């Protein structure tokens, strides 16, 4: 399916959606400026128009090439790889993306000092490390190094969380490390 020209349409649609969305949003600040004729929208709309133009030219050129030689514009390999990979591999890849995002979502709530060791162990496990000594040892080494550099030496204020118990534990840990 992805060996055809669908990816060309897909890419065009992404750029059309981006430029169309940005153009629609630009009406929110479409107000005249006394000292500047082009207003606040002039520059962003010029860029939007250029994106639209280049996206259309790209589509036309690549479509013309694809019509001449279908193999010349075969879609990016990773889409075909994605669809040919097993469900389990795709779930693992999805988790490799999702876990750091989950970490970023949890960190302001549960704090850096509590969340980080758990994240490190989970991420190492996801990347294929199964020996528990390495899981714990490497996680603690990375964690210790980061705490030493950023908390003990540079006094960087890292998130301590805003959930009651976690807030207390994180603050206690910060005091202990310093």
């Amino acid at each position, binding site marked *: 399916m992805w060996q055809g020209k669908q990816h060309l349409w897909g890419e065009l649609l992404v750029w059309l959606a981006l430029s169309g969305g940005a153009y629609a949003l630009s009406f929110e600040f479409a107000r005249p400026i006394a000292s500047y004729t082009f207003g606040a929208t002039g520059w962003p709309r010029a860029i939007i128009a250029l994106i639209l133009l280049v996206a259309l030219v790209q589509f036309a050129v690549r479509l013309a090439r694809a019509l001449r030689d279908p193999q010349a514009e075969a879609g990016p390999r990773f889409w075909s790889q994605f669809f040919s990979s097993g469900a389990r591999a795709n779930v693992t890849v999805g988790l490799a993306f999702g876990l750091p995002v989950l970490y970023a979502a949890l960190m302001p709530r549960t704090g850096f000092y509590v969340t980080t060791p758990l994240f*490190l162990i989970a991420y190492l496990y996801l990347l294929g490390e199964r020996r528990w000594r390495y899981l714990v040892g490497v996680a603690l080494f990375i964690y210790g190094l980061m705490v030493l550099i950023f908390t003990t030496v540079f006094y960087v204020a890292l998130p301590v969380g805003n959930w009651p118990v976690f807030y207390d534990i994180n603050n206690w840990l910060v005091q202990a490390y310093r």
Partner: protein
Amino acid sequence: MLWDFIHSTIHLFTDPVTLLIFVSGLLGGMLFGAIPGVNMLTLGAVILPFTAHMSAENAIMLYSVIYCAGVFGGAITAILFNIPGAPENAPTALDGYPLTQKGQAGKAVGAAVLCSALGGFASALLMIIATPLIASWAVRQFGPPEVFALIFFGLTVAASVGAKTLWKGWLSVLLGLLIATVGTDPAGGYARFSFGTYYLLAGVSFIPMVLGFFAISEVFIQGEKMVTGTRKAPKVSLDFPSFAEFWRLKIAVLRSMVIGFFAGILPGIGAVLAAFMSYSVAVRWSRHPEKFGTGELEGVVASETANNAATGAAMIPLLALGLPGGALTAMMLGVFQIHGMEPGPLIFVTSKDLVWTTFSAMLFANIAILGLGWLQTKTVVHLLAVPFRFLSPAILLLATIGAYALRNLIVDVWVMFVAGIIGYFLRRSGYSVAGIVLGLVLGDLGEAAFVKTMQLTGYSLTTFLSRPVCGALVAVGVLTLLWNFYAELRRPPAAAA
């Protein structure tokens, strides 16, 4: 002049306090430059209050040494892990990291060390010889129209670098320019694309974007390869580039020095554009432009020579005219104010010692980079022997802390991850993250220059053609654009896919 230099050099190496400050600045700059998020600006900001307790000579000298060492420090992580320590090291990662993946990390780091030292040394030397002369010329010739024309030229060149096709290159640059419009417009102060949040009024923070597009997207790409079992670990090598290899790149080094030096003089342009422009010009002049982005040593050489050549040059408008060219030189202006001094042409008469100590320190800082950098090549490269499954969580954590520590905002971490995910898909589809980053850097500057030009000239677009320097830059930009279109349309279909 020679006596002044000798006198300041003797003072630098015989006064224990001055020497201690010199060494601290050197090591601190290299360390902070190499850690993403806590860059040389962080160090500069942290030590600013303490400079009140130093002499003005030592304080300014400290900042100038941090500047030289910090710009170099960021190259190491850019080459080894695809994490540019600072924006000016972003083009270094384009070929430095592929070299690492090919098992030639030592060669890439070695070239970065040599070229950083050479670029910085030549720039410091030129600074010593020609500060007042060059500063007055550059500032008289470069108004807002010229700055806009230079940015236009820079973008036309950048669009042809890093992406699979010219169209993808331009779309990458334009995406960066569009992201740069988020925040407040330079003419009326209206909020644009801010979605009603206070955070976006100041624009999208730059460092999290760089970390996301380069480091996080790389971790995702390598993580995917590990999970699917397709990843090949890079070999560790400690080879410095041979003399013959380096000699072949002599023209690239000289050209990058010139580009870096002139970009560094211009206020607001500085080392970032210097590195990108030098890289782009190297691609343009190369007989094998298709090799760039796949591990071409000349890419590392071009970027690292230019960004270090810009450091000495950036001191010229600061000292001679009191015009800071970037964030760190603006901090230096703060140091002058703390000590009740005003930089400008008179400083060469009233504070001769300060000027010569700074010149001398920058010259020797660049020589010291050569020695310290050589040590780094023999030690830091061993980090590559650590399995990537152990390194990748450390990189993720380092990038997360770097993004957060910048302003203590978790939103910056989100921006970094969003940029990382977008960067992953764009890179896999053949777009250029370097193009996006350059568009992002130059967007604000370009719009501000355009607005000022329009206001000053009564909306006369012919201004861009009627001023000699401006007209030349526009003409070169248009020629580059046309040549790129021609080259793109002549490309064989397989190469353009």
